[in-house]
């Protein structure tokens, strides 16, 4: 409160300032005119005295300009109307001049002051428009109801310089004060305020100070409504002096704007929830399907083969035994792949995956990938084409190898024996592209995006085992590196999967290689 008093005090001082300036101005003008005064005739001098009048009308308004006019007449009379240095007037015709002067001064002052008033008004309107605009822009950026309401409360209270309360229906559809302006003074908490807020909410009309309903209540209640429904109530404290019509319009506009924003956030929250439910439903089904099939099948073969071996020790030939043992191993390996993929997905989704950024040598990485897939290449040939000089790029080599092993394994899995898989690495501009091309059955156009979805299995994958997690993990890893992974049909037959990663150049000290060679 002290700051308010100080402001008032300062304002009072400021209000006296124009009169002091006018007095000084008129005195100075009189001195100047008096020095050269006899060169002019009286009419010109009278005109000169209109200057302070106009000036104060434009800058300080009506009353100071009248003061300037009076001061002008007195100075004119005293210094320039004979007898000089006296207020008495020799020639009575000068009285007429005074009257004309005063009339002209009054008229111009009024005009100038009105102009000033209009400028002030339009500035205010502009400020209101700006406030509305900034509120609407802020609201468009907020995606959560609570933050949105707090934002509105803050913005409105700053714009209209008053305390604000916002009422919204709670979980039990009871209206409650959910947001308020910062530095809350408990405005809008009382029972009577609640009653008016309820009335406003139910009727969707303004109530309180200056309206038809409860016009004497120290607060204005504005419904937050769109055309369809009312979302809440905005209350503005307005006890001393009713709010101007301008402010009421502004508040109404704020109300509409806020209601639209609330409606938007509510709708998007509902949509998000619905999408989330559907997605989690889909994933749950897929996970159950996948786990029950992918885990049970190999488990069944492992248990079956093992019990067979134990129970019928003497019935099997050594070839049969070997066959059963290979089945056990393959079943276990398949389960291991599933578990690894599920763990990978969990790591990826829980954000546990920490990227280690290091320089990756494409040639080295492909060497590791080849040694990892060696086991199931079968009769297929793998050709490697690496651009010279070998591209280096920043990334986590272990994770990126996992990506490539997955992609190359897929290429092998979906292409026939005797065909060729081509791995190519090339750098173009700021991207390093690693592509894996096969001669397989290819991917339908509608599946090219979806194969990177979790648990998605293409229609062509019947008969091949897998969980549909591998490529989803690849996508997660590649995107964590700021890269992209895409699938496209190969010109002749098959598919090309391309991993594009941001390139870079490892920093090496100047001439490190040359020094080495010279030492030889």
């Amino acid at each position, binding site marked *: 409160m002290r700051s308010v008093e100080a402001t008032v005090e300062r304002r009072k001082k400021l209000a006296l300032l124009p009169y002091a300036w006018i007095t000084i101005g008129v005195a100075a003008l009189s001195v100047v005119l008096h020095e050269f005064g006899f060169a002019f005739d009286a009419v010109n001098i009278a005109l000169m005295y209109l200057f302070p009048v106009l000036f104060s009308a434009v800058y300080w308004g009506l009353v100071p300009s009248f003061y300037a006019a009076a001061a002008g007449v007195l100075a004119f009379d005293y210094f320039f109307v004979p007898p000089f240095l006296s207020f008495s007037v020799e020639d009575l015709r000068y009285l007429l001049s005074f009257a004309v002067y005063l009339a002209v001064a009054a008229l111009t002052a009024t005009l100038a002051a009105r102009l000033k008033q209009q400028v002030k008004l339009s500035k205010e309107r502009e400020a209101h428009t700006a406030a509305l605009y900034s509120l609407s822009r802020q609201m468009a950026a907020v995606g959560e109801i609570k933050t949105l309401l707090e934002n509105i409360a803050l913005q409105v209270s700053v714009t209209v310089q008053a305390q604000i309360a916002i009422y919204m229906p709670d979980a039990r559809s009871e209206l409650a004060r959910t947001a308020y302006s910062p530095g809350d003074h408990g405005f809008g908490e009382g029972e009577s305020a609640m009653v008016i807020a309820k009335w406003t909410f139910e009727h969707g009309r303004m109530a309180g100070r200056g309206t038809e309903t409860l016009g004497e209540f120290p607060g204005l209640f504005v419904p937050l409504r769109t055309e369809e429904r009312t979302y809440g109530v905005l209350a503005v404290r307005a006890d001393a002096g009713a709010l101007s019509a301008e402010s009421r319009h502004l508040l109404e506009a704020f109300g509409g704007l806020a209601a639209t924003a609330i409606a938007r956030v509510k709708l998007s929250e509902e949509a998000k929830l619905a999408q989330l439910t559907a997605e989690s439903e889909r994933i749950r089904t897929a996970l159950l399907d996948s786990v029950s099939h992918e885990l049970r099948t190999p488990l069944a073969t492992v248990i079956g083969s093992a019990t067979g071996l134990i129970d019928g020790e003497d019935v099997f030939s050594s070839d049969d035994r070997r066959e059963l043992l290979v089945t056990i191993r393959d079943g276990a390996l398949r389960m291991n792949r599933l578990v690894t993929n599920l763990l990978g997905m969990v790591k990826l989704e829980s954000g546990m995956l920490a990227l280690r950024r290091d320089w990756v040598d494409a040639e*080295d990485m492909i060497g590791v990938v080849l040694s990892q897939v060696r086991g199931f290449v079968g009769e297929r040939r793998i050709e490697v084409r690496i651009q010279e000089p070998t591209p280096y790029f920043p990334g986590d080599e272990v994770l990126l*190898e996992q990506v490539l092993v997955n992609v190359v394994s897929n290429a092998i899995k979906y292409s026939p024996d005797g065909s060729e898989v081509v791995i190519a690495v090339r750098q173009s501009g700021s991207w390093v592209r690693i592509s894996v091309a096969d001669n397989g059955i290819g991917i339908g156009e509608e599946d090219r995006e979806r194969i990177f979805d979790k648990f998605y299995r293409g229609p062509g994958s019947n008969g091949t085992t897998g969980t549909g997690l591998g490529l989803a993990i690849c996508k997660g890893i590649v995107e964590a590196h700021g890269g992209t992974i895409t699938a496209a049909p190969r010109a002749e037959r098959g598919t090309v999967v391309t991993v594009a990663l941001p390139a870079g150049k490892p920093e*090496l000290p100047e001439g490190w290689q040359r020094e080495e*060679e010279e030492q030889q």
Partner: protein
Amino acid sequence: MTTETGARILVVDDEPQIRKLLKVTLKAHHFDVLEAETGEDGIYQASINHPDLIVLDLGLPDVSGMTVLNRIREWSRIPIIVLTAKDREADKIEALDGGADDYVTKPFGMGELVARIRVALRHSGNAQQEPVLRFGRLVIDLAQRLVELDGTRVKLTPTEYELLKVLASNAGKVITQRQLLQQVWGGHHHESDTHYLRIYIGHLRKKLEEDPTRPTFIETEPGIGYRFLLQEQAK
């Protein structure tokens, strides 16, 4: 192969299933097997029974596998192969830097484990350095600092030669990036210098390998380091 039979192997693992599996298989390969269920027991048995090699699980109930490793390394150079279900590179690197000779991750192929055990045993057998190392087509003469491939001299820069020397004299073992940096560049290296390593290894491969993407001499252990392949390991 006959030289390793009869070697005594201490298995330190808290899982009875794994111990049983190892015991049965290693016995079938004519190794003597000792078992320890806890880390403390493992350290105790290592000190009184003088095993020729230790297979050590990292996740033990009483003290961590790393502690066991460090405590044994205080007084012994017995080859230790770490057997771990932890698949984070950091754990493997810590174990290798801490003095382990090799690591095998669970689930593991028995054949691979047995092969690693053989390599480690052989390595400990001839720890004294030969002046000339021979790996199939590749001959490294440590006394003359000469490298020959198929009988022709290969020109290597000093750093490339040092790198090859460190890797080849530890053939069959994983050498971590840190160990390599320390041994080749000495004390004044930086963790971020690993990309020099990559580039030098790339150069070495270009000079030694027929196809650098299918290396037969220097194999990359992703995220961990490099291994110079004994020729029976190269396929």
